[in-house]
């Protein structure tokens, strides 16, 4: 499978994602410069973490108008699999591909540490290799991860099982204390209503191999690969 990794000016987790896709998964990873206008030949798209455009104005606010974003909107509309990690999540929010917005962390601090997240929905292309309720340890590294949306949208996210990850204790209890940034309803990751676009603040690419002492994040990439393979088999069968 061919995973496109979008590179914005200021992206800094693009190489980590490329490394995981090519060296850990053994699949093809293609860097895609933000000026590209076509995503042809790609099976999935990754918007990596970083500080696109220096986070000027708001995180993701400028990057969402990069030429490649039109192609990503179209790719997503056609059902293509899109994952945004950290700054990638922030860009997807600004682009309206996912609902809501990010506020500064409650503590005002940039937080860089391992957190635990609970898989609230294991029936997504991004979590198919996880168990429902499984606790994953994945690092976060952000200053703006305090997810906010209006009450009506939050109710819809809850009702449609669009909340995919929530911050929790190592035992899997979703508590105020386990919420690192003040995020609404302990939200760490959400998907769109159609289910093919996911945004998450934790960095699975930083915890995807034994050499790093933690490979929980690999499950996200394995799930994506698995879903892509199944979709391809289905297409061939049809």
């Amino acid at each position, binding site marked *: 499978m061919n995973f496109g990794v979008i590179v914005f000016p200021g992206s800094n987790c693009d190489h980590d994602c490329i490394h995981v896709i090519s060296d850990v998964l053994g699949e093809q990873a293609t860097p895609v410069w933000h000026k590209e206008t076509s995503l042809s030949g790609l099976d999935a798209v990754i918007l990596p973490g970083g500080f696109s455009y220096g986070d000027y104005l708001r995180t993701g606010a400028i990057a969402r*108008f990069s030429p490649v974003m039109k192609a990503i909107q179209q790719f997503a509309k056609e059902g293509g699999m899109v994952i945004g990690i950290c700054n990638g999540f922030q860009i997807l929010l600004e682009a309206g591909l996912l609902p809501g917005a990010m506020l500064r962390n409650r503590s*005002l601090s940039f937080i860089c540490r391992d957190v635990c997240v609970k898989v609230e929905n294991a029936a997504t292309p991004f979590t198919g290799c996880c168990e429902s309720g499984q606790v994953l340890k994945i690092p976060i590294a952000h200053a703006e991860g305090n997810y906010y949306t209006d009450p009506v949208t939050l109710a819809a996210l809850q009702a449609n099982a669009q909340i995919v990850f929530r911050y929790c204790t190592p035992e899997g209890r979703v508590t105020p204390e386990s919420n690192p940034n003040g995020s609404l309803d302990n939200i760490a990751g959400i998907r769109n209503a159609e289910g093919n676009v996911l945004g998450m603040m934790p960095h699975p690419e930083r915890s995807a191999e034994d050499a790093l002492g933690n490979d929980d994040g690999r499950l996200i990439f394995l799930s994506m690969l698995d879903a892509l393979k199944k979709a391809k088999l289905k297409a061939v069968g049809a």
Partner: protein
Amino acid sequence: MKAKIHVTLKSGILDPQGKAIEHALETLGFKHAGNVRMGKYLELDVNEQDKAKAEVEVKAMCEKLLANTIIEEYRFELTA
């Protein structure tokens, strides 16, 4: 024309920076300061003489890019 634009978090939305500033003011002994809200201030030239048209254009800039209306509100004034 010159546009002077203020962007602030909507009321009711937690403003951690405003809170931190409020605490600092309290610590400094400013007992009468409260409800601090921090925002952004932007200035830009609009190459348009018609005030009504300039207003429409600046509003569009705010809606599309300068403010995220999910969490922020904006106001602006136009001067010659």
